[in-house]
Structure formats: C-alpha cells, structure tokens
C-alpha cells in the first residue's frame, strides 16, 4: 500500500527521473570563469577611473556649451561652408546664459546624456545606418549602454553610472561624426 506521499511523488515524477544521479562536469570550469571575472573587474576599475575623469570633463563641457549656447563638440555644421563660429548661436555669446556651472554633476550628466541621445537620434534619422564596418562598434556600444541602463535601474542616482553612460554616448557620437566627416570629404573630392 502506497502512502499519500508516494502517490504524490509518483504523479509528479512517474518515471523516477529524480532517481538519476547528478551528471559530473567533464572539467573544472572555475579557471575560465575566474579569468572572465578578473578581466571584468580590471575593465570596471579602468572605466571607473575614466568615468570619474569624464564626469568632470563632461560636466565642464556641458556647462561651457550651455553657457556659450554652442553645440557640443562633435556637431558638424549643417552646411559644409558654415563654421561653428558663423552660427547664430555663437553670435549670442555677448549675452551668456546664467551660471549652469552651479548645477550638481548628476543633473549635468543626465542633461548631457539626454542631449547626446537627441543628437544621435537626429543623426540616425538624417544619415541613416552607419557603414557596416562602423556599425559593429555602434552595436557593441549600444549593448554596453543597455548594461549601464540595467545597472541604473537599480541605482538611478549613481554619478559613476551616468558618467559611464555619457562616455559611451560620446563614443557613439564620435562614430557618427567620423562617418559624416568621411562622407563629407568623399563628396568634396568629387
């Protein structure tokens, strides 16, 4: 006579698969995992140092850009014959906007991140996809941005993470900038 426990177990696992022993891995996988973790830690440290420096630099650049009303570095003039200095925004330097330098770094970074996102969207809309050789880097950078966004969902006020995000977005803008510049020179040489 089977107990209720045995009846239930037989219903859940009628073929007694749980009776199979654990399978043994063919090799110790730890050395490979350890190497991956150490590499990640090393890159994380480098990014933190770079991110910290960039946070300061990015805040300064953003503040300066806002103060002067100029586009961020990486903007190409809409017309190849026009320079940044010729733009109306540059002419407005006589009346500088009030002191964005007093903004806390986190807000500056968030603002810069939004500004860069907008710029990338605009470039993407006007210039279309990047050439395939550059696209690979763009996809990798976007993957990294997704990872940073995941981390930001847990720590939304992390200056370090926002600076990493800005850093990565700047890298993406550089890809577009270089690609547009290449195209501009190609057209100019025709």
């Amino acid at each position, binding site marked *: 006579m089977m107990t209720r426990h045995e009846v239930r177990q037989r219903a*859940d696992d009628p073929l007694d*698969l749980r009776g199979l022993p654990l*399978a043994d891995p*063919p090799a110790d*996988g730890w050395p490979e*995992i350890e190497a991956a*973790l150490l590499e*990640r830690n090393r890159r*994380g440290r480098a990014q933190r140092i770079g991110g910290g420096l960039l946070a300061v630099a990015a805040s300064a650049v953003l503040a300066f850009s806002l103060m002067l009303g100029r586009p961020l570095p990486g903007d190409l003039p809409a017309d190849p014959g026009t320079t940044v200095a010729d733009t109306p925004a540059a002419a407005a330097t006589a009346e500088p906007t009030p002191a964005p330098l007093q903004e806390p770094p986190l807000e500056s970074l968030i603002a810069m991140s939004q500004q860069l996102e907008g710029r990338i969207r605009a470039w993407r809309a006007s210039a279309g996809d990047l050439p395939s050789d550059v696209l690979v880097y763009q996809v990798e950078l976007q993957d990294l941005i997704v990872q940073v966004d995941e*981390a930001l969902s847990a720590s939304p006020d992390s200056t370090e993470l926002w600076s990493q995000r800005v850093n990565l977005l700047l890298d993406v803008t550089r890809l577009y900038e270089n690609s547009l510049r290449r195209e501009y020179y190609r057209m100019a040489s025709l």
Partner: protein
Amino acid sequence: MNGSPFEIELDEMTLARARRGSVAACEQIYRAYHRPAYSVAFRIAHCPETAQEIAQEAFITAFRKIRQYRGDAPFWGWLRRVVVNHAISTIRRDRRHDAVTLQDFHEPEPPRQEQLGTAMDLEAALGLLDTEDRAVVWLHDVEGYNHKEIADLFGKTESFSKTRLSRARSRLRDLLQPHRSAAGGLR
C-alpha cells in the same frame, strides 16, 4: 519528496561578498552549485560539451548580474533560472544538438542483462527524446516547474508544455517498457 538538486542554501555572508565583487566568494558559489548547474544543462542539452558551455556562461552571467538578485526568493532558485534560461536559449538557437544526440543514440548497443532496468536505461532513453520534450519533462518532473513557468520559458502556451510533457513521458515509457519488463518491472 526530494526537491531539485539545486536546493542548496547559501550563507548571507558569501552572498554579500559576491555582490561586492569578491572573486573568492564567487568561487565558493561556483563550487557549491556547479554540479547541479552542469547536471540540469546536461539533462536539457544532452551533450557534455554544450552543457559545460551553458553552465560556464550561466555562472558568468549570474556573477555579472548578482547585484540584481533581490533576495526575495532563495538564491538557488535565482541561479537555477539563469542556468535554465541559458540552456533553453542554447537549444533553441542551436538545433544541431538534436542531430548529434540522434546520431549518438540511433543504434544503441543492446543493454547488458545486468543493466536492464537501471539508471543507464533511463539516461539512454532521455537521450532519444526530442530536445524540447526532454527539457520539458526534466523541468517539470525533476526541477518542479509548473506548466505556466515552462510555457513562459519557451515563449509558448501552457498547452505546449502539457503536450510535450505527455509526449515525453509516453515516449520514455515505450522506450523503457521492454527493459523494465525483462528486468522484472520497476513500475
């Protein structure tokens, strides 16, 4: 009732150290869970090399995302989900596992009399199942997943899970029947 082989408790201190990035703590976690992780990957993929890759990638993913573990459920359940997700993605991405498995087991050697009715039969019979059927029967019968959880993993309906489970069990019974009868019948 025996639970999942994953059901190993992890002390809070090791978990906290791992979340702070301690490689030594990660190794402790690996040592505690690598056999159940490999085992579930092997039962699903039924290929030692693939199972090893799945387990490795799953541990790296888990350690990379360990800060996302919120502690509202046992750690082993969270880790098992990472491993199973990797295993399911792998078998769905790479259907060649089926071909390898079938090739390996198409003409199994006749079991020796003393092996009849043993775990060896069950292992070989599992190897003959369709990959998704095997994953479903293992996750349901051994790991204790319900049909909804399995359906979510595969991105399918609960009917998919129920059908595959029924088909897998039926096929296993067919495969095991002659052996078990000859051995005096385990069931």
